[in-house]
């Protein structure tokens, strides 16, 4: 069969085929490049454009006072700014701004003419003050919302509580110290978008992680007492024209700090404007020479050691008493005085002469026992221990100086707390300001225990010292501290300020103090007032005494229930903590045993069901709730290997198995295999290594 000639030029035809194949191959290679080799680059980009992460801000924990008043909380803040290029009607906007804001029209006009696309007009306006701002209408007016910390009581207890930065990170005070407790865990929502950013899709593979709010901090501070103290201190500061002042109120039977104030204070809502000195919690961070208030501790040592009865008389040398090339002076000339009078009139010469037979070591031991020269353990940031040197380094004059409060330094909390030991029957407690930590649902996570550190003096000696201090207020240096409706006691202190640089006492610069207690029989409060460099009155009794009286006169009326001394008394929180602490872990117990245990401790017990074993014990005030496990606990033996004995035993139902233990350390072998059925009476042997 004859074949016809092809119409195509064979070579060119082949060329076309090759070109088409090359074209195809090029595309194939390109696909491979983008889909395999370089895929990751584009995938990363793709994820970014599809998903947007929305962090769900976890609110920071609240700081409450002992009664549940919010001392630090979270509110919505607004920042207001302007985009000058977007402003539609500058004149109208300026008019609206001047009507709402504090600044003149010219200032706003300047802002509207500023370069850039984002010019702040005002920042951090709390939501309750922002209502008028929010009404402003203009396309160029920018409203930005954020959560932030708010301190409703402003300067009250501000140095104690501290403050946060705009990102809600703790910067100072408890906000810094308890940042881990207060900070919540932010959640995350991943939303998917289309290109128009309008349609939102929920990604089932990445569910929303809910934010977990921070835990709440409950303080021992009583906001009512704090208010009284802050106000009294502020007035005292003005009256004495002093540089600064501090005050502490302590519950003498527990060590709870009920108020802690520094003046001048600062507003933590606008902390940036405040000076560093004002932000310091000077009550614990600043050490100073206490002066005559220390005479009480010298007296305590003398009485407790039985060296001087309270009615010993001593000649006070008419105000001048040379000792080791120095002259010890009294502010007034005194002749013969009894021990009691020495305290009431605060005679330096008297106390020095009385303590002649008191060995240096003994005085040192007593002062140490009262907590001087050591941190109080209150656990506040920046606390200083004060100074109390070893007796071996003391000069001949040292004992005399220390006996009336020189050559040593203390912080305000320390000495106020030591005073509590004088009036509560002789016990030194660890002062504390954190009552506990609660989770966002209100369950206690942590409670601070009242901690009695040691007994320093006997109750009898304490009674004598209290009577001394009553005398101080009734007829001694502290008459201005006398109360209207109650009997108080206390001791004045007027310490010349010591300049560590020139190693001299500074003329005319004093720390005036008064530390006292009331009511007399069973003191509910111990209050220390310290005034730094008063210019009008510099004696402790004159400068600090009236502040003490003003505080006590008010706060003594806050509570009418009788004060009972000792552990059984005043404050529930701490006591409850001890009671709670002494309870064993009752999970897994038979309900009868748990019931007996709880009733033994005076709890009103409630149970959720009547069969099973204890799963959870929750305790609130005097009520305990026993939650029982209806389903019988683990019917099968868990894998105990690698667990400590304690952990292992927790996992085993003690009523079912007879457990014998061999060795110590961690379980490395168990006689019944994990998963074996637990029938009553079986025995399990655990081998530990």
């Amino acid at each position, binding site marked *: 069969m004859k074949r016809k000639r092809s119409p195509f030029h064979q070579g060119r035809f082949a060329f*076309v085929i090759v070109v088409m194949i090359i074209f195809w191959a090029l595309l194939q290679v390109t696909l491979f490049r983008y889909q395999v080799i370089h895929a990751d680059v584009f995938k990363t980009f793709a994820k970014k454009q599809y998903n947007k992460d929305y962090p769900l801000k976890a609110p920071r924990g609240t700081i409450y006072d002992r009664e549940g008043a919010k001392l630090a909380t979270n509110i919505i803040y607004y920042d207001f700014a302007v985009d000058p290029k977007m402003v539609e009607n500058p004149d109208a906007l300026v008019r609206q701004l001047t009507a709402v804001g504090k600044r003149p029209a010219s200032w706003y006009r300047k802002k509207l003419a500023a370069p850039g696309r984002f010019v702040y007009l005002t920042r951090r306006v709390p939501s309750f003050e922002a209502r008028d701002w929010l009404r402003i209408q203009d396309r160029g007016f920018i409203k930005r919302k954020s959560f932030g910390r708010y301190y409703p009581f402003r300067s009250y207890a501000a140095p104690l509580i501290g403050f946060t930065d705009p990102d809600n990170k703790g910067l100072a005070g408890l906000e810094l110290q308890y940042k881990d407790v207060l900070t919540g865990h932010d959640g995350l929502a991943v939303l998917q978008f289309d290109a128009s950013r309008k349609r939102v899709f929920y990604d089932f593979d990445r569910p929303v992680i809910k934010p977990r709010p921070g835990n709440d901090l409950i303080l021992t501070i009583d906001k009512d007492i704090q208010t009284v103290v802050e106000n009294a201190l502020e007035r005292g500061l003005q009256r004495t024209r002093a540089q600064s002042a501090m005050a502490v109120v302590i519950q003498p039977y527990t060590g709870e700090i009920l108020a802690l104030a520094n003046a001048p204070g600062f507003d933590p809502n606008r902390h940036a404007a405040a000076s560093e000195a004002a932000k310091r919690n000077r009550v614990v961070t600043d050490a100073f020479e206490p002066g005559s208030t220390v005479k009480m501790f010298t007296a305590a040592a003398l009485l407790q050691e039985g060296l001087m009865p309270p009615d010993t008389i001593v000649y006070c040398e008419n105000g001048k008493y040379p000792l080791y090339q120095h002259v010890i002076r009294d502010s007034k000339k005194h002749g013969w005085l009894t021990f009691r009078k020495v305290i009431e009139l605060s005679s330096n010469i008297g106390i020095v002469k009385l303590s002649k037979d008191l060995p240096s070591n003994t005085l040192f031991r007593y002062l140490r026992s009262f907590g001087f020269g050591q941190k109080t353990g209150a656990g506040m940031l920046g606390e200083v221990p004060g100074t109390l040197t070893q007796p071996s380094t003391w000069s001949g004059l040292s004992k005399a100086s220390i006996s009336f409060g020189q050559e040593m330094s203390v912080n305000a909390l320390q000495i106020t707390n030591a005073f509590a030991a004088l009036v509560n029957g002789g016990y030194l407690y660890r002062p504390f300001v954190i009552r506990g930590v609660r989770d966002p649902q209100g369950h206690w996570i942590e409670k601070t225990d009242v901690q009695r550190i040691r007994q320093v003096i006997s109750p009898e000696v304490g009674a004598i010292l209290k009577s001394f201090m009553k005398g101080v207020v009734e007829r001694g240096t502290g008459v201005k501290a006398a109360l209207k409706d109650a009997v108080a006691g206390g001791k004045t202190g007027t310490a010349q300020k010591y300049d560590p640089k020139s190693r001299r006492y500074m003329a005319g610069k004093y720390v005036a103090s008064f530390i006292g207690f009331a009511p007399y029989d069973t003191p509910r409060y111990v209050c220390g007032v310290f005034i730094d460099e008063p210019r009008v009155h510099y004696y402790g009794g004159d400068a600090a005494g009236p502040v003490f009286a003003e505080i006590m006169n008010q706060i003594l009326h806050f509570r009418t229930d009788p004060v009972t001394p000792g552990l059984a008394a005043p404050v529930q929180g701490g006591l409850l903590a001890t009671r709670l602490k002494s309870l064993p872990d009752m999970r897994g117990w038979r309900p009868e045993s748990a019931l007996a245990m709880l009733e033994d401790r005076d709890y009103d017990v409630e149970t959720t069901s009547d069969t099973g074993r204890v799963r959870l014990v929750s305790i609130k005030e005097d009520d305990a709730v026993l939650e029982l496990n209806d389903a019988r606990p683990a019917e099968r033996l868990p894998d105990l290997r690698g667990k400590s004995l304690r952990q292992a035993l927790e996992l085993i139902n003690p009523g079912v198995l007879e457990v014998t233990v061999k060795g110590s350390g961690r379980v490395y072998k168990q006689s019944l295999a994990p998963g074996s059925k637990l029938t009553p009476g079986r025995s399990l042997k655990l081998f530990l290594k």
Partner: protein
Amino acid sequence: MKTTQSVDRLIGIITILLIVLGPLMVFSSSTVYAGALKKPQAYFFEAQLKWDLIAVVFLLVFSRLPLNWLKKQWVILGVNGASIVLLAGLFIFGKTINGATRWYHLGFVNFQPSELTKLALILFFADRLTRPGLEKGDYKQTALPMFAWLGLSMLLILKQPDLGTALVIGMIGVAMMFVSRLRLRYIVLSILPAFPLLALYLGRGGYQAERIKSWFLGLHDPMHGPDQVMQSIVGLANGGVTGVGFGESRQKLLFLPEAHTDFIFSIISEEFGLIGGTLILLAFLTLVIRGLRVARRAPDAFSSFVAYGISIYVGLYAFMNVAVVTGVMPTTGLPLPFISYGGSHLIFMSIAMGVLLSISRETTPVENHASDTKRFGKAQSRFTQSLVR
């Protein structure tokens, strides 16, 4: 003479499969877009399904038409006349979309006459290239009428403006002349002046020039290229080797513009991965190779050139579309044959494939002509001919 009575089954099956795949991919890639236009989700799917049915009818009808019918001068002239008139008529009656006047609005549908032009030119060239004296005739008799007709068509299309289509028909025309025994000299001399003209056209600026500049940037790093191409490549990368699965494309969430039309290959590659994309490319490559085989075995020279022209037409369209989607070529606005949303290209592509199938019914094996292979080397010739024998 006739050795087969049946159509080339491979071509038929692949064509049908591609036509069926079309509405499915249009559905997957257009639901979100339809939603954004406040239309029912299946709006584009349903429209494309109707076109699909019509396309299959055309495919079947044309695959059964006798070949002699196409060869008739009045058919060739009629189709070409209609093509030019319709192209010219666009300037008066055309509908302008996105600044380009490429369509007639026929009430229920937009008709793009340049689709007809492609077929018309294939017929015209096939007729001209099979006239006696092609090898030895002078320029005026042989090359000039073809270049004149091609040039006029291209000019009218360029005016729309539609650079992509103009270039494609130019390439089809040149490819047809190239494989004939027309003197290479004539072809080269005729094309040369086109390059400065093209440079001038692009030099005027405008969006075409911008496109090419941006394409060049994207060739180096797609992230800096045109946004559409960048999004298209992101889609490819998302698909990886195996793809994210049918309907799972994320790029169709309006990230990739024209996801259901010109850039549908990106969605296919995203949903079915490198494997899916490769299968599509191989399908088109097979169509080209088998089409060229049909061309070589066609019963007469005219049918050979028609079959050849159609094969190049389908192949160029498919490959250039993928080249645009992968950023290899600047954006041209060519749909992916059979699959992209749209009626005009689907109908004319089906007609073309129908004609190709109809030619494949009457194929006969052919012999090699050793004389032609001198210039390109025997090995290459042998390889390519083994492909299309």
